[in-house]
């Protein structure tokens, strides 16, 4: 018999409808119900925010291939603990997700785990090698909505043009780009500036991102295709996106919590958990990213959750891999560093982490609205609860740039299709 729930007395924040009020929300048979069912399990939500489940546009689940770093199951557990009911799993696995077989494998593993809905991202090019188009149509048939060679930009503008044009045969398919010019960024370990020059670390200038953003926006204009720009880091990129949007280019953009919170100044201890791509940039870039997120030029917040083994990160800085995990800290980081200081409204934060992300991903069952008959993909969180970021994590890895810091805002319940997958902060599967 399906379970029935009542979220009682929650502050319901639903960006899809603009609703923000204290109310009860009933769940019956996996969907939001207008009637309060009898014998429902009552979840006391006094002081909690109830919102549509979060949606991550950018997760590295590492399976198949690097199950020592993360598996679909552990990644989905981390997602659920972080309040995410849906995520886009990047294609740079081993083997890469460049065929329907890998897509099916990842989705089947996710279904078996039952912790978060996984939308596999397909590779744009075969083997992520940047040379020839992968069989995009076959992957679309397998359910892929976003293609990306994340980790690299498509190196060749003509190939990108052809991919963006080709996918117009299918409904609402998005090409997502990691923006980094390899020749300009070659060898870069962190943002190029005064700090990199004092630390003796090779720098990657912000222009390495901007030249690809400019190129990709031009190709998007040329093809009329839908472009999504991953993890923007520079003020100049933001300006390019703003202008392109004003000019009618079909582009969306994301920013990560770590780029919104940290800057190059956090590298001075050679902390390898602060090493990621794109690199943490200057404080003025961070300010521009925050402004763009608030006004909507940047549509969504995405984690770029990138698990790495402890021994890989506990290494010399230039030998450590790029990336930080982020699923379990994203919401709290945004609440603590943006919402609480008043830089970002709570409704806009949830829109960026859920509603807008779901729209880009085509995850129609996610992101709200929280209305009768809609699938019950929800998160309830305590915006005031303080906690220290430290292992154990749901993730198999612990390379968090927030490690050792204190954040405010803790996920209490995560509901996936009417099932409580996280209850009282604990994963139920």
């Amino acid at each position, binding site marked *: 018999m399906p379970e029935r729930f009542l979220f009682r007395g929650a502050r319901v924040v639903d960006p899809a409808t603009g609703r923000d009020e204290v109310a009860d929300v009933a769940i019956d048979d996996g969907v939001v119900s207008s009637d309060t069912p009898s014998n429902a399990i009552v979840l006391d939500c006094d002081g909690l925010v109830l919102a549509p489940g979060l949606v991550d546009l950018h997760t590295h689940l590492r399976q198949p291939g690097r199950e020592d770093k993360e598996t679909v199951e552990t990644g989905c557990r981390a997602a659920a603990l972080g309040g995410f009911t849906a995520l886009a799993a990047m294609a740079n696995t081993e083997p890469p997700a460049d065929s329907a077989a890998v897509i099916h494998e990842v989705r089947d593993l996710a279904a078996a785990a039952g912790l978060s809905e996984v939308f596999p991202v397909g590779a744009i090019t075969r083997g992520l090698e940047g040379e020839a188009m992968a069989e995009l149509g076959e992957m679309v048939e397998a359910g892929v909505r976003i293609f990306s060679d994340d980790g690299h930009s498509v190196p060749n503008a003509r190939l990108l043009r052809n991919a963006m044009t080709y996918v117009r045969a299918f409904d609402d398919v998005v090409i997502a780009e990691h923006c980094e010019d390899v020749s300009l960024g070659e060898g870069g*370990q962190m943002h190029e*500036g*005064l700090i990199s*020059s*004092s*630390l*003796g*670390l*090779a720098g990657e200038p912000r222009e390495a991102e901007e030249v690809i953003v400019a190129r990709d926006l031009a190709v998007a204009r040329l093809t009329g295709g839908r472009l999504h720009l991953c993890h923007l880091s520079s003020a100049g990129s933001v300006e390019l996106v703003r202008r392109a949007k004003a000019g009618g280019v079909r582009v969306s953009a994301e920013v990560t919590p770590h780029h919104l919170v940290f800057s190059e100044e956090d590298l001075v*201890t*050679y902390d390898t958990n602060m090493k990621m791509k794109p690199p943490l940039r200057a404080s003025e870039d961070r300010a521009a990213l925050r402004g763009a997120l608030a006004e909507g030029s940047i549509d969504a917040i995405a984690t770029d959750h990138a698990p790495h083994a402890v*021994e890989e990160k*506990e*290494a*010399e*800085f*230039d*030998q450590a891999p790029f990336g930080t995990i982020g699923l379990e800290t994203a919401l709290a980081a945004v609440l603590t560093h943006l919402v609480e200081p008043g830089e970002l409204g709570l409704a806009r934060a949830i829109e960026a982490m859920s509603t807008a992300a779901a729209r880009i991903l085509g995850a129609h069952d996610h992101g709200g609205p929280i209305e009768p008959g809609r699938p019950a993909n929800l998160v309830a969180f305590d915006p005031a609860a303080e906690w220290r970021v430290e292992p154990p994590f749901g993730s198999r890895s612990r390379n968090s740039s927030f490690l050792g810091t204190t954040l405010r805002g803790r996920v209490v319940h995560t509901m996936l299709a009417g099932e409580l997958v996280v209850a009282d902060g604990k994963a139920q599967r």
Partner: protein
Amino acid sequence: MNRHLLSIHDASAEDVVRILDTAESFREVGTRVIKKVPALRGRTVVNLFYENSTRTRISFELAAKRLSADVINFSTGGSSVSKGESLKDTALTLQAMGADAIVIRHSSSGAPLTLTRWVRGSVLNAGDGTHEHPTQALLDLYTMRDRLGRLEGLRVGIVGDVMHSRVARSLSFALVKMGAEATLVGPPTLIPPEAPAWGVQVSHDIESVLPKLDVCYMLRVQRERQRQQYVPSVREYARLFGLSRSRVDLLPEGALVMHPGPMNRGVEIDSDVADLPRAVIEEQVTNGIAIRMSLLYLLLGGSGAEDVPRAEEVGADA
């Protein structure tokens, strides 16, 4: 003083003076028939060299031995490191063996700082990547003060590939700290654009700078910079920025020529320039031992120059 010397920023101007003064007392030891004091008797110093550097390693080894420390040389060739052992595991091993000081040379910037997370002993940076080489900077300051009598107000030109030079970084920071005036000279591709924020001047014209210098400090040119297209050719570099026999006469009388070694004679410095009396390159080497003695001594518990003659007392706890 800090427990470690990872960067010139770990030493205050006062510390620098103390390090140089202490080196002054130790330099005399090197002139004795029996070149040894018992200051660090029973203490263990490990030379952990991930990069080949015979000169720096020997300098540290001699310094530690002249202080009567037990010295272990741990080089990457033929050791567990070449079998893929991580820096962390090597550090934990050295820690377990009771190293009091670890002198580390590494090709990765920041590796000495990373090492401090896993060891209790003092860590001395003997050069890390393109970051810093603080003991080189200190021996250079020592040589300048010894020859010219002061540091404050000295005008020092640092010529060459500053971008990739740990020597230039440490020396620039050290000169600024001591009130000297540093000017970086080189092609714009090899000078970090942020250098003015270090408190130094920048020039791309060596001949306009030379007449205004008390010290002309030449950096070693790496031939791979040509391949990486920072300069069109080593030949053109030498023509535009080398310290040639004709250029050296632009220096004021009494100005020094310095080089951290090893030199590329005929590239950044003409052979007969390197052999002029004003070129104090061998003195730098000799002074390096005294500076490293001073640093090992101070980091491992000595309080300053006044202690040196009574060094047995310092080592007595061993």
